[in-house]
């Protein structure tokens, strides 16, 4: 299946150079399977997000086909690595729409990539489920654009609520240079007042930085700080957490859902103990109460992914899972690949229980998650645990 896809796409690739692809385009139209297009940051700075997304899509497309496909047709995944580069993402999206003639697009690891693509999918009237975080993607609502992950705004809200409950009112921010970091930082800086929280320090670090003790020392010596919040993913937060431990800073450290994976605990080591973050249920699938609606789906995905890829799940793979499942459900409900019908079906998604939470889309809400989708997690004994 994969090899078949590979060969056809190699042909298509050659066609670009030979630019004699009129035939191929014709052939592409005539193909049977339902085509799901994807562009993901499989390499580049956001690779730790894009990689599990890619793996999840490939794996579950395979499973669905093994189970007979959708509407009696096989699914075909056409995916490209946009390496977190918006320009690349735009070109690949164009390729998916114009060249591969996909029926819908699931992808866009980062907000930048997604935003760069939105004008295209809107113009092409192509159903598009984004896997990126920022609220700007769905606010204002764009007819053809949906998004799976909890927004960074929700993450801020969840964290601030938890801070309130712990009587923490003066906090420091430390964030990286990435889009994820910056946009969550911006959201938090918009919301903190509503929750009666003052941001008394706001530090940043650079990509590839090897040490953040300077910034943390500054924070440590800022009068009145009660907690630290570190929006970001990948290497940065791990180093921040380690340095946090090194400097022996006692106040609570909050991370973002950007590091919601077992990997983070491995990277940060002992220093991760006591770190809190808002994460999806899937991270604590096995300790979810039996009556939790998400338990079954979360446990199933967790075990499927971990047994198959021999690596820990992350919420990002979960976004891809939900995206694919909602897409499939929509295809079934629409009963065809008619783009308008599929779009309406996605918008009509109600009470879909996914690994990220329970989705209730509407004409005014193209994300469909509420705060309940986020669980406040804390690292205890080298593992994620639910904060009761």
């Amino acid at each position, binding site marked *: 299946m994969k090899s078949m896809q*590979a060969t056809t*796409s*190699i042909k*298509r*690739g*050659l066609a*670009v*150079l030979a*630019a*004699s*692809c*009129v035939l191929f*385009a014709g052939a592409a139209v005539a193909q049977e399977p339902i085509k799901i297009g994807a562009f993901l940051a*499989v*390499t580049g700075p956001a690779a730790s997000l894009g990689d599990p997304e890619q793996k999840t899509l490939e794996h579950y497309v395979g499973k669905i086909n093994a189970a007979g496909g959708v509407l009696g047709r096989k699914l075909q995944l056409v995916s*490209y*690595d946009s390496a*977190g*580069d*918006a*320009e*690349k993402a*735009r*070109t*690949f999206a*164009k*390729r998916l*729409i*114009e*060249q591969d003639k996909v029926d819908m697009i699931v992808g866009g690891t*980062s*907000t*930048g990539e997604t*935003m*760069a693509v939105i*004008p295209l999918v809107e113009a092409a009237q192509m159903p598009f489920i984004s896997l990126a975080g*920022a609220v*700007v993607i769905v606010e204002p609502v764009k007819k053809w654009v949906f998004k799976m992950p909890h927004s960074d705004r929700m993450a801020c809200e969840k964290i601030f609520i938890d801070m309130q409950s712990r009587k923490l009112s003066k906090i420091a921010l430390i964030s990286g*240079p*990435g*889009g994820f*970091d*910056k*946009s969550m930082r*911006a959201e938090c800086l918009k919301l903190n007042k509503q929750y009666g929280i003052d941001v008394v320090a706001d530090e*940043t670090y650079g990509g590839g930085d090897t040490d953040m003790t300077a910034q943390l020392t500054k924070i440590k010596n800022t009068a009145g700080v009660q907690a630290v919040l570190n929006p970001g993913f990948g290497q940065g937060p791990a180093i921040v957490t380690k340095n946090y431990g090194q400097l022996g800073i006692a106040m609570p450290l909050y991370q973002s859902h950007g590091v919601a994976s077992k990997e983070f605990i491995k990277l940060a080591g002992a220093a991760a103990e006591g770190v809190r973050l808002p994460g999806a249920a899937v991270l604590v699938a096995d300790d979810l109460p039996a009556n939790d609606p998400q338990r079954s789906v979360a446990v199933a995905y967790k075990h499927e992914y971990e047994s198959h890829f021999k690596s820990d799940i992350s919420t990002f793979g979960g976004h891809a899972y939900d995206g694919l499942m909602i897409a499939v459900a929509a295809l079934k409900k629409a009963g065809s690949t008619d783009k308008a019908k599929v779009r309406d079906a996605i918008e009509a998604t109600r009470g879909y229980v996914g690994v990220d939470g329970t989705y209730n889309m509407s004409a005014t809400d193209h994300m469909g998650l509420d705060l309940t989708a986020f669980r406040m997690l804390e690292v205890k004994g080298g593992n994620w645990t639910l904060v009761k």
Partner: protein
Amino acid sequence: MLARLASPRTGGLLALAVVIVLLPLALSNSYFYDVAILVGLNAIVCIGLNLLIGYAGQISLGHAGFFGLGAYGSAILASRYGWPPLAAMLTTTLAVAALAFLVGRPILRLKGHYLAMATLGLGVIIFMVITTEDKVTGGPDGISVVPFRIGGFVLQGERIWYWVVGALLLVAVWLALNLIESPAGRALRALHSSEVGAEVVGINAANHKVMVFVISAVFASIAGSLAAHYSGFVTPGKVAFLHSIELVTMVVFGGMASTFGAVVGAAVLTTLPQLLAVLKDYEMMVFGAVMMGTMIFLPRGVVPSLARLIQTRRQKASNNGGEGGHEQGAGASHSCGDATGRDCHRPPTVAVLKPRQSDGGGGV
């Protein structure tokens, strides 16, 4: 004599024009147009950069910065402040030119790797400002850009953009070829080969370096503005130093000191990733291997190496010395890419390794 000397240049221009006009026959959908447009825009940057690197022998690892300033300048003025795009673009271009002029003099005093570092640093600084000042620039997530409009006419859709970019590419090539054959252009090539030799015939090396630096910055800036309006969105990715490296690679890959080489380099290295995309995880590896291989086997870059091959063939064919001489003369007087001149392929960094001939005198 003049007719012969003019032909390679007008010939090349015509050939390029024909390609641009005929290409759409092969472009079956707007995705291919999109790739073609990206090629065109990159080519415009590379033509300017090649004037600096290939002809004047001054390396720059910071031109993505100028490209980015062009893009963000247009984006911010046109989208945030609602300027007419054309005015936004011209203002931006002027600003970039001014910046290049100001930083050019101190930076271009440096030589070789130090110049590389300085330009690289300049690019990084521009990048940092753009990513950090997110109030204005939208930060790492970038900002969307309004379509380009002149009066009532809106530039939208790949097909229109294709012709616009194609035309501009031709203009860029034409300008570059003109400059190279002007006294200023000769001065640049001269100071590349021997700065002291150029100085003692009255060439103000510093001024000429700054001049070509500004020109190349302007090319990059304009391409940046266009790219922003075309794709309707800008992110700092295009300002990053890796993009600067990409641009230099295109120039060297196609062939330094060969204007058409710059175009070819841009074309190949822009389409290659599209071809290799299907290789998934192996893409990066193969891309690197292709780059290495080409530079190892065609060290002067694709166009000059091939041009030279053909030339030697022709000389073999008519092994009449005089004729051969003429051929060389014609080639040489156009772009040393076509000439047998080793020197112009010597980069700025190798003032150390002087050509054999020049050591001859001392030895005697």
